[in-house]
């Protein structure tokens, strides 16, 4: 495992060194989007329907209830959850060769966990720390050049790809310090159930923040499944590229073709 990490680190550093000469100008992407296949579309659509059912019966009503809580409680919860997520972000910053970001995020985590009382208050942002951007193992694999594989819809968890699903497994085989401390930490403050509660709360928090936008998307889609798939894959593409999302997402080919027809 140690050897694997060292080799991966060297590969990542070399890869980033090779890209260091790019000019970063405002040119739009000339690369056509990688066509990620929906190899299990029938099964995926069935799982998607199941998830929609669960959302209707459980997640959406809970999220609506959560939205009724005072905004200070909700923002404190969001801040604390985001603070915990930096325990996955920091090792991924390192694995992607982003050592400066790893340092900044570590500082942010220390400040928010102590002065910000377990991350409830985002003191680091008030101290003008740079904007926090989440990273995960799926993104790291993508940054290393590993292909996404097929698109999959997981029960309860929702859209993913084979690569991103494998990335999530890394969390539970030692990649997530919060999971490790909760399940193997042998301490009186953390436990398996607390870890699960945190994950459920993250889901509810996300759903509550997106109540209107998801409803709106569903109402205005003729094929909601296809819309969600497109949005998920675009989101992952821009997160993996770690570049200006707008520039990366705008493949020029089709627009140019229309212009010349």
């Amino acid at each position, binding site marked *: 495992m140690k050897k694997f990490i060292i080799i991966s680190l060297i590969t990542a550093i070399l890869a980033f060194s090779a890209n260091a000469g790019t000019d970063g100008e*405002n*040119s739009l992407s000339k690369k056509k989007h990688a066509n990620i296949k929906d190899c299990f579309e029938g099964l995926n659509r069935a799982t998607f329907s199941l998830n929609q059912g669960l959302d209707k019966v459980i997640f959406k009503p809970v999220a609506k209830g959560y939205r009724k809580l005072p905004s200070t409680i909700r923002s404190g919860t969001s801040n604390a959850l985001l603070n915990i997520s930096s325990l996955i972000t920091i090792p991924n910053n390192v694995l992607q060769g982003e050592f400066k970001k790893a340092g900044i995020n570590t500082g942010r985590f220390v400040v928010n966990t102590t002065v910000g009382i377990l991350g409830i208050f985002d003191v680091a942002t008030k101290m003008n720390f740079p904007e926090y951007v989440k990273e995960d193992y799926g993104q790291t694999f993508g940054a290393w050049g590993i292909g996404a594989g097929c698109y999959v819809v997981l029960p309860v968890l929702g859209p993913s790809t084979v690569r991103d699903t494998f990335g999530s497994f890394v969390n539970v085989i030692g990649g997530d310090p919060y999971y490790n401390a909760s399940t193997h930490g042998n301490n009186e403050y953390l436990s398996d159930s607390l870890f699960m509660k945190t994950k459920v709360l993250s889901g509810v928090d996300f759903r509550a*923040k997106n109540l209107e936008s998801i409803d709106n998307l569903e109402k*205005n889609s003729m094929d909601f499944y296809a819309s969600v798939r497109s949005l998920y894959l*675009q989101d992952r593409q821009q997160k993996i590229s770690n570049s200006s999302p*707008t520039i990366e997402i705008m493949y020029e080919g089709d627009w140019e073709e229309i*212009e010349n027809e």
Partner: protein
Amino acid sequence: MRIKKILILFIFIFSFSNFNEVLSIEPDVFVQSIVNRASKILSSNLNKENRIEELKNIADETVDIEILGLYTLGSYRKNLSDDQKKIYAVLFREYFLKTFASRLAEYSNPEIEVTSKRKINEKYTIVSSSLVKTDKRPEVKIDWRVYTKNPENLLIRDLIIEGLSLARTQKEEFLSIIQNNDEDINALFETLREFIK
């Protein structure tokens, strides 16, 4: 005599300036004016139906609906007959205006601030803006792809919300419908007809 001098001065100035530039509007000002018009409607006392009608008018004037429609068909547009192109243009316009206005009408009194612009090439400028956060939603970054080839007639071709392109999402949704119906474009036409009923 004095008037004659002023007239000569004007003729002199205009002969050296590009009339297009005089009449043109900057992309960021263009976007801000759209946002202001939409905000005014959304914060007005109009009922929902009237709001939607007003928003449709704005979209009709400022979005390049015809080209956006062709874009959303991907490579399938190349196989369309002239008759199919005409049918599709009408269906897409109705579909677009309905969904666009319906999406916006949900927001009451949205505050959007234009923050910057980046000229990508002679044809496009990206105008960046942000939907100011409220108690119910976080701040949302919105980028506008403005077609600037004709400076006198700027048009919106795409909205990129938090890095997610609406045009691309629409295209992939349409392609999914076509591909799940044995590549029959008429299935998309039928679905559009059903939706805009």
